[in-house]
């Protein structure tokens, strides 16, 4: 089996975007990838209705989904106890790829962010990354979602990042990996080594 191939047949995929034309484009791309069970909604309430009546396997959601926005929706899905879609992969589509927005998406619990307009390559590679790179889930008082401490070393067989794309970033470090004394002694050793040569 080719590790770079994803099989979307039979998977229930939800596209949540208020832009009817971009919904159709995304739908077309996913059809091209082999998906055959697609749902489209244009607002928050539509997502709730679909999730209530249907098990969804992955959701592609726009950050500006009216009226509350995709990030608020993600937080609700992730933080609702007993919700069977709580761990569903969520791919957030956005035209706003500023670092602050990416961090907010990460902290809301999305699996990955993809910049609009999406290319078929970018979409395929991100879906493949989610499929082939499972991440732990973290449940704390303030966060429920995929482990935010990860790095993308490259998409499986993919094209890499576009300049405007930003995957969900590694969380901020809570402290230095080495104690300051250790760092000082390392620099000291390096300096004394230079002196000897």
């Amino acid at each position, binding site marked *: 089996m080719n590790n770079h*191939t*994803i*099989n979307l047949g039979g998977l229930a995929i939800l596209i949540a975007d208020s832009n009817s034309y971009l919904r159709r484009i995304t739908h077309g791309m996913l059809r091209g990838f082999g998906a055959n069970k697609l749902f489209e909604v244009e607002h928050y309430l539509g997502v709730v209705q679909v999730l209530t009546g249907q098990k969804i*396997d992955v959701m592609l959601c726009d950050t500006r989904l009216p009226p509350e926005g995709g990030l608020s929706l993600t937080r609700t899905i992730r933080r609702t106890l007993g919700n069977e879609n709580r761990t569903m992969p969520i791919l957030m589509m956005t035209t706003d790829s500023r670092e602050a927005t990416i961090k907010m998406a990460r902290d809301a619990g999305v699996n990955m962010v993809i910049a609009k307009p999406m290319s078929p390559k970018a979409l395929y590679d991100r879906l493949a990354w*989610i499929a082939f790179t*499972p991440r*732990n889930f973290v449940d*704390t008082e303030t966060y429920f979602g995929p482990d935010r401490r990860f790095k993308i070393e490259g998409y499986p067989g993919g094209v890499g990042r576009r300049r405007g794309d930003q995957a969900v970033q590694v969380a901020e470090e809570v402290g230095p990996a080495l104690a300051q004394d250790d760092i000082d002694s390392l620099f000291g050793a390096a300096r004394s080594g230079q002196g000897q040569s």
Partner: protein
Amino acid sequence: MTKKTAAAARIFFVDTRFQRMARRPGGVPREKAIARAQVYIEELKPEFADWLNKKLQEMAAAVRRIEGDASQLDEAYESCCQLRDAGAAMGFELTTVISNNLCELLEAIKAGSPYHKETMECHIDALHLTSKAPYCNLRADQVPEMTRGLRRVVERANTSPSTSSK
């Protein structure tokens, strides 16, 4: 597989149905899947002109209503964003550039800048132009007079005394 950390976080492994199913053999190989997706997008292109014209009418009407009713701002802004995003997806670069200008102007109005009717109208006219040949096929750098001129209009509107004083 669950473990507790000092901060009482519960960390557990999840292999979702999506992940299990997507890894099955028998999927469409990447290159073929991408080529097929591009065919679907091409098939949608003829419908884009109709969608664009309809959306332009909606957007223009919403922008004009702002003058008398500021509550229309959100609807106008949403329409502009949709034009910007769809234009980029379908290769209508000028539509994206000009609707992005308009998005900036609307954001400034949201932040308290005054509504300049002429500034709005010249962008609406330019957007109508970009929906038709030959402009729909041109890049921004092929019509520098238009794009730079509109940019200057946006910058002037965003730095007008009444704006900067707010």
